[in-house]
């Protein structure tokens, strides 16, 4: 249990998927201009990461990992080189499926999240989550917690950034620094602040 809590805290703070691993930058820069859209996209990322990371875990350990096909009488087969292409297809398919399910059952949620879902399929934070899960040899439960934690970390970072950018609108910046330049510098300062959480011990 303690391990799970520490995985969660670490994926939110010190090992934040955006601020420490630079994943999901494209949509982070593009969408943080508006706080409502930022929060919407943030929740969509939490949702998709929490679903795709464990699903990819099942697929990797059930089909692709070395020896995973033993149940089919093929213990020698190692398909792990296919993980990139399989993961990206699974993510695209899952996003599509989630979009359809939400559309069918909750019109309110669809109105809120729907437009962000297609954007997410190419968000590197999602693929990164799955790849790190393999790299770090997580168990199934850990992959659920890690997916959820990374999503929450990303949500926290983009919300904070969107809030900071509202203030930045009134700042008198030197020519050329506005927009992308200052966003990156603020992100850097935020990354420093998040690193301070690395001292948390359980």
């Amino acid at each position, binding site marked *: 249990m303690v391990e799970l809590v520490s995985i969660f805290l670490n994926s939110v703070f010190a090992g934040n998927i955006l*601020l*420490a*691993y*630079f*994943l*999901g*930058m*494209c949509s982070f*820069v*593009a969408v943080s201009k508006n706080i409502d859209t930022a929060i919407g996209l943030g929740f969509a990322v939490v949702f998709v990461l929490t679903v795709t990371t464990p699903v990819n875990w099942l697929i990797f350990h059930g089909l692709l990992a070395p020896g995973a096909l033993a149940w089919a009488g093929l213990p020698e087969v190692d398909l792990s*080189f*296919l*993980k*990139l*292409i399989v993961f*990206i297809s699974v993510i*695209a398919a899952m996003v599509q499926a989630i979009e359809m399910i939400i559309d069918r059952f909750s019109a309110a949620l669809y109105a809120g999240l729907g437009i962000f879902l297609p954007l997410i399929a*190419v*968000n*590197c934070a*999602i*693929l*990164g989550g799955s*790849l*790190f899960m393999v*790299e770090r040899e997580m168990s199934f439960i850990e992959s659920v917690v890690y997916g959820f934690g990374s999503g929450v970390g990303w949500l926290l970072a983009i919300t904070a950034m969107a809030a900071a950018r509202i203030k930045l609108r009134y700042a008198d910046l*030197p*020519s*050329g*620094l506005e*927009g*992308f*330049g*200052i*966003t*990156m*510098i603020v*992100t*850097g*300062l935020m*990354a*420093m602040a998040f*690193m301070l959480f690395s001292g948390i011990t359980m």
Partner: protein
Amino acid sequence: MKLTRTKAFKTFADPAWYDNPINMQMLGICSALAVTVQLKTAFVMTLAMTFVVSMSGLIISLMRRIIPGNIRIIVELAVIASLVILADEFLKAYFYDISKLLSVFVGLIITNCIILGRAEGFALSNPPHLALIDGLGNGVGYGSVLLSVAFIRELFGSGSIFGFSVIPESAYAAGYEDMGIMMLAPAAFIIIGLMAWVQKYLANSRKS
């Protein structure tokens, strides 16, 4: 006709400097920064990225008349993903030490927005040789930013360039210390922000 006026040159130079993919289009910075602690990893990443973006441009441009419109994105993704896997497997086989340092970031080239953007926006509507050159230009532009960030981080963070120490021992003896912050993530964000500032400032003053 001067070299700088040819279509091919423009195709190369536009992405490499004028519309540099990192600073101007804000694309593709995802996987770029994590590998900039050392020049060596940044350099290999640049090569991998250039290979994928130019080859995917070439292949997609060659197939542009036969790809059915309704599944073109997935076809593009399949081509890109296959090329990335090839690059990854190749690195693991021939540059094992570096591939260990790059870990998952080679794989994340797939989700790099530049590549899909170039495939969709350029290769689908241009002949193969231009698509290839456009890819190379994008690779060089991407690489120049990546390598500059890596240069600054490695020089100030570990006092070396490509792994060779360049800060003299006497400087350390006189009290000089490597900047630990350069090795950490925040430094990459701040450097890229400052670089975007300089490039935008120059672009602004060129216009006026």
